[in-house]
């Protein structure tokens, strides 16, 4: 820690919060629900970080397959909302929280913490997200072919039955490099009937090699 400020050390002897580094804060949280293949959420107020907000999601258990993606609206410094997408046969619904590496001043009482450059690091109204687990990569399991001849690669990450654990889904929705010039279409599938969590890539020329971390977090302290 610098010469002044605050540093809180827990029973494990590690720094949990301090006035030096921004933590992943829960900026907004709630439920999303929409119509065929799409659910929109407006950020209120708009999120003013330069970094795009991290979108963490936990879809509702429908007893079967839930395939989702996302896209963010707005621009650095003014992120206005997000859209949760899915197949047209599915109406996306579930819980979300939006995380960022800056607090916003919302609490009427509690504690606020700024760094030496006057950036708000902590506000008890936008508490830090809780780390649960991560992995450096998803694990390739299988490849299937759809009716149009596209290859779908299935990459697995351990499924959690806890409805309080959220998966970061920002990377689901933007295409990845493939072996052709179409790209790999990305998606996340919760298979509630089989208790499986999948990241899928779909392409005509679809290499098995894949590199994408899986990041999980929860809100509850």
């Amino acid at each position, binding site marked *: 820690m610098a010469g002044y400020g605050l540093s809180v050390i827990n029973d494990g002897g590690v720094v949990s919060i301090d006035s030096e580094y921004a933590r992943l804060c829960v900026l907004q949280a709630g439920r999303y629900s929409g119509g065929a293949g799409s659910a929109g959420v407006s950020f209120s107020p708009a999120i003013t970080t330069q970094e*795009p907000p991290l979108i963490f999601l936990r879809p509702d258990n429908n007893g079967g397959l839930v395939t989702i993606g996302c896209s963010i609206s707005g621009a650095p410094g003014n992120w206005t909302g997000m859209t949760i997408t899915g197949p047209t046969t599915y109406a996306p619904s579930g819980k979300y929280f939006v995380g960022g590496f800056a607090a916003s001043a919302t609490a009427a009482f509690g504690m606020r913490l700024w760094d030496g450059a006057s950036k708000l690091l902590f506000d008890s109204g936008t508490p830090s997200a809780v780390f649960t687990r991560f992995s450096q990569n998803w694990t390739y399991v299988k490849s299937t072919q759809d009716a149009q001849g596209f290859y779908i690669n299935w990459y697995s990450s351990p499924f959690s039955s806890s409805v309080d654990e959220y998966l970061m889904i920002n990377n689901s929705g933007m295409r990845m490099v493939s072996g052709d010039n179409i790209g790999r279409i990305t998606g996340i599938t919760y298979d509630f009937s089989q208790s499986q969590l999948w990241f899928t890539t779909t392409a005509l020329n679809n290499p098995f090699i894949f590199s994408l971390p899986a990041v999980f977090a929860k809100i509850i302290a």
Partner: protein
Amino acid sequence: MSFGMRTWGADGVLQFNTDTATWRIVLSTVVSFAGAAGKSTQPFSVPGCNANNAVAIVLPIGAAASDDRQLETEMTDGTVYVRNYINGYAGLMFSHSTMRLIVMRWY
């Protein structure tokens, strides 16, 4: 809890508890391969970070177009590599995208 801090909301619900680990930001920067002429790699120094305590992610900046391609990251001891191609795959395709690299470490 013997040491640490807790905060509660106006509704009496526990909001923050230092018994739980948090994600701390280590690095946040925009990475661009807009001028890439082929497959290339950009290294970023992240002292003290490794594959067990930190994760590197690249975020789309706004809505992605259908011809945008994601970059990929590799976390190694002290260095993050960002690539515009599929590492280990012989194909020739590569990305021209600009994405936000975030390295975060849990405590």
